[in-house]
């Protein structure tokens, strides 16, 4: 499988502030790639560089095989971007907005009408076409932003916190459309999000901390590396739990014990079968991964 994005030694500073420090990573064609980090971690800077909207200080960035410095036009034809906030024209109708953006890619006339019809059906905004953008709700506007990004059939879709503030229905629709496009057209998706359950669906995840890569891998690899397993014990007394000799969190009608991994959980259960009569084991979630990696909450602060 070829790489859709190749970044090597990317650096970018704003004055004395180093926003991105020596980033090196790749995104494979067709994958859903999640790029996580706190505000100010360098996500938007990296996205703006990939989009050719911002110049880098050093390093190389290749998108769809095209170097962003030497072949910017090829890069721009290959990418579609959904920004955090809408960048479309509020006073104009949805149709006028899409028409002006499609023209940027040379899509006009019958070709434009056909593409808008297709996207309007896919994203369910046929009835919104003649309405001014500023009169639409947040969810409706988001659908138009996505349509704008997809107008020219990009090979790489960049979603910068696309679901922040959206209602569950619109979030579901958005992810359904993205999944359909990945399946039908092999679309590669580069996602930044604050919702860890969205990141958990990714094929590959990078966690950025203060401009550098703090962790990377598949969600499972990250969970195995950065979180433990949670065992929830039901129908046991506090005394029984104390016999395990591990710190336990008391829940409303259960106790929760955290162990380093599944092997440790198995060992514990086999050693105390009389206590483990009614229990469940859950792997740590992406929230735990993020908190552990960025070192803000667990296990002594500055990460493992």
């Amino acid at each position: 499988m070829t790489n859709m994005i190749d970044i090597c030694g990317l650096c970018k500073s704003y004055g004395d502030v180093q926003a991105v420090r020596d980033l090196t990573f790749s995104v494979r064609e067709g994958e859903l790639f999640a790029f996580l980090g706190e505000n100010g971690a360098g996500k938007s800077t990296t996205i703006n560089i990939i989009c050719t909207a911002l110049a880098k200080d050093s390093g190389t960035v290749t998108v769809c095989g095209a170097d962003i410095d030497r072949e910017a036009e090829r890069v721009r034809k290959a990418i579609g971007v959904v920004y955090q906030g809408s960048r479309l024209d509020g006073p104009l109708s949805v149709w006028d907005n899409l028409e002006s953006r499609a023209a940027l890619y040379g899509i006009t006339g019958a070709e434009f009408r056909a593409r808008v019809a297709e996207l309007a059906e896919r994203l369910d905004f046929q009835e919104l076409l003649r309405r001014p953008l500023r009169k639409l709700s947040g969810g409706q506007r988001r659908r138009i932003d996505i349509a704008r990004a997809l107008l020219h059939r990009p090979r790489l879709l960049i979603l910068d916190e696309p679901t922040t503030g959206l209602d569950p229905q619109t979030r579901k629709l958005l992810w359904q459309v993205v999944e359909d496009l990945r399946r039908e057209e092999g679309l590669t998706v580069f996602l930044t999000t604050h919702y860890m359950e969205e990141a958990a669906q990714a094929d590959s995840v990078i966690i950025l901390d203060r401009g550098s890569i703090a962790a990377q891998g598949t969600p499972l690899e990250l969970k195995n590396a950065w979180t433990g397993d949670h065992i929830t014990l039901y129908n046991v007394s506090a005394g029984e739990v104390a016999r395990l000799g591990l710190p336990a969190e008391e829940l409303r009608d259960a106790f929760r014990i955290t162990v380093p991994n599944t092997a440790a959980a198995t060992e514990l259960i086999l050693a105390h079968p009389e206590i483990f009569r009614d229990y469940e084991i859950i792997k740590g979630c992406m929230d735990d991964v993020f908190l552990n990696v960025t070192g803000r909450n667990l296990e002594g602060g500055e990460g493992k």
Partner: protein
Amino acid sequence: MKTFSVLLRRNMRLFFRDKGMFFTSLITPAILLVLYVTFLGDVYRDSFVMNLPAALPVPEKLLDGLVAGQLISSILAVSCVTVAFCSNFLMVQDKALGTATDLRVSPVRASTLSVAYYVSTLAVTLIICFCAAGLCFGYAAVAGWYLSLADTVRLLCDVVLLVLFGTALSSVINFFLSSQGQISAVGTIVSSGYGFICGAYMPISSFGEGLQKVISFLPGTYGTALVRTHAMQGAVAELHSLGLPETETEQIMLAMDMRIRFFGNTVPEPVMYLILGGVTAVLILVYVLLNKLKKR
């Protein structure tokens, strides 16, 4: 070409959808005309009466025609530039709202985007300035019409040239702005200052010699001189035909900035066109180059 025309349509739609902006731009020349007539009409008229030989029988209509010529030339000379600054807000607004980034991450050429901004501002400013010219012609027709057909056509050409100049100047200046506050500040400065430095509010001939020399280097001066010449030369010729001597006619033309001196030499009309046209072409080139060389 299709991309360009769609972008042009987008820019113009955005201007006309903003009703406040459109009507403010449209009403400004009308307000200026009312203010001029109310506060400066009599001052201009008295000045003419004082400077004309007492023995010369000047009909009231001709005096009104002279005053109207001076007033409408001042309004048009100022409006063509200030309205251009007012209309040329979209380029900055797109930057402030992040729309410019959305446009620039597409494969469209930077020059196509910049020329679309220029042409849309030009078209909008022309529409408003032609409306202002219509209003001014209406006022001149009521006060005293002494414009020949040729002068009327030349005056309209001057408006086009000044709008081209004003749009190019505002495009270069606005290129460096990135917020709506900045564009408001620049608009205010231009609206209040340009009328003085181009000789629209006060004839340049009434300034000190040093200031006159400095102002003679500014291209707007020649735009005002062209507009004033074509708005007033019919009425001045009528004065001459009534018996005003050649030297005094020439003095009036100098006093009214219908003749501009550059270090003692009178600048001929074709040279004024050349200066204004040349500066406009250079400004457009600078604007396109700025956009082309703009760092990401």
